[in-house]
């Protein structure tokens, strides 16, 4: 009985050693992946921050104002004016038809004519 236990435990030690060896290398690989991803994320974040800064720089009011005045002929952009505010009451709605009232959409009717009746 005892030799069997010895052999089994020896095999178990070998197996565990192999498993630990594999795990160790997997962990190291995972850590390498994480640090690569982290540096990639950091690079992307940096690029994002730079692009945000560039977006803010390209959209600075001074530049937009200059561009608007340079392209005035094509775009006709002017500063917002008080007169550009409208009131819903000032909108001209389509006139109501005298005959149909406010029914202005066509209506489809389905049905069957009674063949015995005289057609109108």
């Amino acid at each position: 009985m005892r030799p069997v236990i010895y052999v089994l435990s020896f095999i178990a030690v070998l197996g565990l050693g192999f498993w630990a060896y594999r795990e160790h290398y997997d962990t190291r690989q995972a850590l390498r992946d994480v640090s690569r991803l982290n540096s990639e994320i950091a690079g992307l974040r940096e690029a994002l921050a730079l692009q945000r800064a560039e977006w803010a720089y390209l959209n600075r009011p001074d530049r937009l104002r200059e561009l608007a005045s340079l392209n005035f002929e094509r775009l006709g952009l002017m500063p917002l004016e008080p007169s550009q505010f409208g009131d819903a009451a000032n909108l001209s709605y389509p006139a109501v038809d005298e005959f149909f009232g406010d029914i202005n959409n066509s209506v489809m009717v389905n049905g069957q004519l009674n063949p015995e009746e005289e057609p109108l």
Partner: protein
Amino acid sequence: MTRTPLRPLARILKARAQGENPDVIERENLRLRHEQMRDAARSRAEVRLLILGFSFFLAFSAIGVRMGVLSATEAAEPRSFASGAEILAQRADITDRNGRVLATNMLTHALYAHPKDMVDPARVAKELAAIFPEMKADDLTRRFTDGRSFIWLRKVLSPEQMQQVHEIGDPGLLFGPREMRLYPNGTLAAHILGGSSFGVEGVHSAEVIGTAGIERAMDARLRDPALSATPLELSVDLTVQAAVEEILGAGVTMLNAKGGAAIIMDVKTGEILSLASLPSFDPNNRPNPVLPKDAEPGDSPLFNRAVQGVYELGSTFKIFATAQAMELGLVGPDTLVDANAPMQWGKHRIREFQNKNYGPLATVTDVIVKSSNVGTARLALQIGGLRQQEFLKSLGFFDPTPIELTEAPGAKPLLPARWPDIVTITTSYGHGMSASPLHLAAAYATIANGGITVKPTLLKQSGPQAGVRVMREEVADASVEMLRQVVTRGTASLAEVPGYEVAGKTGTADKPRRTGGYYKDKVINTFASVFPASDPRYVVLVTLDEPVETSGTEPRRTAGWTAVPVAAEITRRIAPLLGIRPVVEAPPADRLTAVRN
């Protein structure tokens, strides 16, 4: 193991035959057996001790080796979890109220040198001088060869400059990463943002510290690592700020003013939507001007006129005298007061503008509408100096403004040392005591807010402020109505913006000479206004330093001709931006239809 019997029969029989005691043999054998057992136990114990000692040795040496390794190796960052954004940016961004970036960080590089690693210092010095105009080849050669081992060359490099330095190709030139503060909008809102510079510098990083403005006032918040991923939201609206700076700049140029300031403030929340001061500067490249000895502090572009500039603000103060008189129940808007000019008080003579006379009697409303010095002086005398001081103090005129700028606590209003009656009189029309335009804006916001104090702030607020009531709501409403009449039929007729019911008060104050007395032809013009008068939302305040309007036959220096049109243009531009729709005021009723038939 073969056991030897204790009483071996052969020896026993032999002993008996010889007449010896056989028990001796047994004892002898027992002794031998015990010795054997003792030896075995000892050797087993020795082995156990050895194993135990060996395991202790292993355990302690493992701990020792681990400690040695820990102390001998450089610390590595934990790599097993994902890092957050906070590790990248060491200083939080600043945005406007709509999230548009006002200040952010950019990664650049600093340049330093290890002269001892240099191959050819003279060539390096020559090439560096060709790239950077501020460096001199001789100077650099001397520094590279005088035996030091480390030199900082430049704090920040552009990518192009870095490439050029790479192309020199000398191993003695090295780069260190730097986070640089960037203000993408250039000079816009420069006085709010202030600026920043490097604090402690190392090869691998450098700390960025705020040097002025909100960058310095909120330095702790901006550098807090826990908050570095959340931007600091200001109350400023970038679009409004741009419009205000454009119009103020045009006004300063057209009116030949030395400078100007404008403030837009929300009367309910106290949020500053725009705070502009001209001349301005670029916070990306904060200048360090050397001013001549006799220059005023205001001549520096770094000077924030809206916050730091304490001026005598002139007639804009009159509304406080009338409001207090109404609050105390001394007068109502239609009460007649003595406005007979000139008024003699001791050896002082109080005159009106251009020696006019709005008296002998005028209503309180007319005192404001026509800006009568004598009328306000009489009201102030009725109020009395102590109560006047108390009221001005409750409006915040005796303390620095609480705004989040590092310059604010230093801008303390200039108050007269004593408060005799003549000071009561002059203070009532804005002379004798000096305060910053921001003080005035906050006080007008208090009137426009129905008499509840509002503290100006640069940080975005979520709701109205809970201030202290300093006057009754009827008094505040009546004061706004008086200010409205200043625009409809008084000194600020040019302030009218159709649809926005502007209400405001002009102020023209002579500039005090350093040597005492006042300049004849140098004025500070102020226009403080609120709009829309029926439900005040915003305070618009414009101050111009030494403006002069020259379209007429003689130069005009009153606020009605200078600050007022600028403020009107600002209101016209920003009101739609703030989403306020114009009110269509009912036209005056036709006389014919008003009559019943």
